[in-house]
C-alpha cells in the first residue's frame, strides 16, 4: 500500500472512532489534539494491524503522533515486510 492509501485508511478509522466526519480529521493534527484516548488508540491500532498485516505497538502512536507521520512510517514498514 502507498503512503496515501494508508493515510486515507487512518483518517477513515479515526473518523469512525471519534464519530466525526472524515474532513474533520486533519493529517497534521496531533492525535492528542484530536482527543484520542488510549482505548481509541487501541481500536485504530487493531484496524491498521488487520489491514496491513503488521504488528504495531501503542508506542508507534506516540513516536509518530500525526496521521502524516504514522502513515509514512507504516508504509516503510509495510514495504520492508513485502520485500522480505
Amino acid at each position, binding site marked *: 500500500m502507498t503512503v496515501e492509501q494508508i493515510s486515507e485508511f487512518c483518517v477513515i478509522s479515526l473518523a469512525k472512532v471519534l464519530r466525526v466526519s472524515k474532513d474533520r480529521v486533519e493529517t497534521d493534527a496531533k492525535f492528542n489534539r484530536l*482527543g*484520542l484516548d*488510549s482505548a481509541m488508540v487501541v481500536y485504530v491500532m487493531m484496524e491498521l494491524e488487520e489491514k496491513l498485516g503488521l504488528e504495531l505497538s501503542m508506542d508507534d502512536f506516540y513516536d509518530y503522533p500525526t496521521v502524516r507521520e504514522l502513515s509514512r512510517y507504516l508504509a516503510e514498514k509495510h514495504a520492508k515486510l513485502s520485500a522480505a
Partner: protein
Amino acid sequence: MQTFSSLVTLLAKRAETQPDDPAYLFLSDRGTEEAALTFRELYEAAQALAVRLARVARPGDRAILVFPPGLEFLVAFFGCQIARVVAVPMMVPRRQSARDASGGIMANCEPVVALTNPAFAIRGDLQARFAGEQLQWLSVDLTNLEPGRADLPLPDPQDIAFLQYTSGSTSDPKGVAVSHANLLANLEMIRVSLGTTQQSTYVNWVPLYHDMGLILNALEAFYVGALCVLMAPNAFMQRPLNWLRAIHHYRAEVACSPNFGFDLCVSRYRADQMQDVDLSSWTIALNGAEPVHAETIKRFSETFAHHGFDPGAVFPAYGMAEATLLIAGSQRGAGHVTHAVSRSGLQAHAVRTPLDEADVQTLVGCGRALINERIAIVEPEGSVRLPAGQVGEIWVSGPNVARSYWQNPSATKAGLNAAIAGEDDGTNWLRTGDLGFLDETGELFVTGRIKDLVIIRGINHYPQDIEHTAQSLHPALRQNCGAAFSVPDEQDEETLVIVQEIERTERNRIDLDEMAGLIREGVTGEHELFARHIVLIRPGTLPKTTSGKIQRSLTRRLWLERRLDELAARAD
C-alpha cells in the same frame, strides 16, 4: 465455610492445607505464563516482606502500593497484612500527566512506606511524584524469593486491612477504611452468591488497584482456595479475545468485567481467531462496576453461543468500595432479570409502563441483597423509606459496610452513618448516591445517580476535576464556569460533554476551534477521556443556583434540548 479472624489466619491455613496448589498465575501480553506463586510461596514471600516492613513501619502505619501489573502486588498486599500495616493500592500515574489524585491521597493517608517492584524502583519520575519527607521505598522482587518467618502478633478483626480510594474528587479524596471483618464478611457473601469452590478457577484482567480486580477476583479466589489467573489490563484492551482464550485454556468458572469489556469482546470478535475456543466452563460472567446494558448481554450471548457460552452464566451485579465491594448479585445459574419501563417516566424518577415502543427502556436487574445484608430505597431529602416499585436512593447496611473514611469524619457521618427517619434501631446506613428501586421480589434495579459523577468504562470521574483541567488551560476559559457531564451516544455508551463559558474580554481575541482543541487535548492527557462534545457559551449563561453552585444536570438537559447559548454552531 470456617470463619477466620483476619486474612492472615486464612493465608496460614491455605499454606498449611494446600501448600503446593497454584494461587496466582500471571500471563504475559502474549498469553504465556510469566510468573506463578503457590500458596506456600505466597505465604513465605509475604512473611519475608513483613519482616522488612516491621523494621520501618509500626502497626497501623500506611504503605502505598505502586506496581505495574504482576504478582508482586499480591506479595506486598499480604505482607502488609502480616505486619499489620494498612495497604493503600495506588493507580500508577501516567508519565505525561501533571496532576492526578495521588497528591491528595498522600496528604490524606500520610504513608511511611512505598512498596514497588525493581523496575519501578528506578523510575525517577515515580520517586519524585511520591516524594515525602519520611517515605521509605521497599522493592518486592519475585525473582529472588527468600523464605521468611514473621512471628508477629495477628491482626484483630476490626483492624484496617486497606484503604480504597475510589470516591471523592482529586482535591478531596475519600479513602474507604476496610477492616478485616468487613473484608471477610463480603468475601463470604460473595462466595455464597457465586457458589464458588476450590475448583472455581478465575481469570481476571481488571487492575488490582480497582476493587473489582482486588476483591472480587484476587482475594475471592484466594478465599475459596482457587487459582486466579491474572493478565495485564492493557493486554486485555489490546487483545480482548485473549481473555476468552485464557478462560478456555484454564477451564475457568469465573471471569468478571465492567460492561464495556463485554462490548469490546463482541466488537473484536474474529471467528478465525477463536477456532476451538470453548467457553462452556464459564459459569459466572459477572458484569458490574458500571451500568449493565441489556443490549450488551444479548449481543455477547449471541456472538459466543457457538463457543459454548451459556447465557445463564450472565451475572449482573452491583457494588461499591464503601460496602467492601459487592452489594447485590444474582444467584449462580439463575440468569438475569429484565424490566421494560418508560424512559420518560424514569427521567422523572418514576417507574411506569412505557407509552409506546420508542419509550421503552430495558433495565437489567442487579440481583438481590446478599446474606446478612439489607438494601433500602430511601427518599434522599427526608430520609424516608420508600415501598417497592418507587425510585429513591439506594441505602445499604451490613457487616461488609465500612465504618469510616480515613481521616474524614464529616464524610463518614454523612455517607456511612445515615439513619432512616422513624427507624430508631441504631442501624448505620451507607448512602450510595445511586438511584434505583426494588421490585416485589427484592430484585434491585439501578436507574441513575444523585451525585454528579461521570462513569466511563467503569472508571469514576469527578466533573469538577475535568472542569478544573479545562479551565487551567487558557485565561479565556472562565474559572468555575464550566460543566462536565456524560450523555449516552448512538450505541448507548456514555460519552463526555464539556460546556464552558468564554471570558467576554477575550471573545474576539481567540479562535473557538483552537479553544476546543486545547480542551480536548488537555482532558485526554489528564483524564484519559475523549471529550466528544465541547460547547463554548457566553459568559453568565451557565445554569447555576442562587448560591453559585453549578447545575450540571440542568445544563445537561438544556444541552440535549439544544437550548444553550452557544458561541458557534455545533459542529458534530
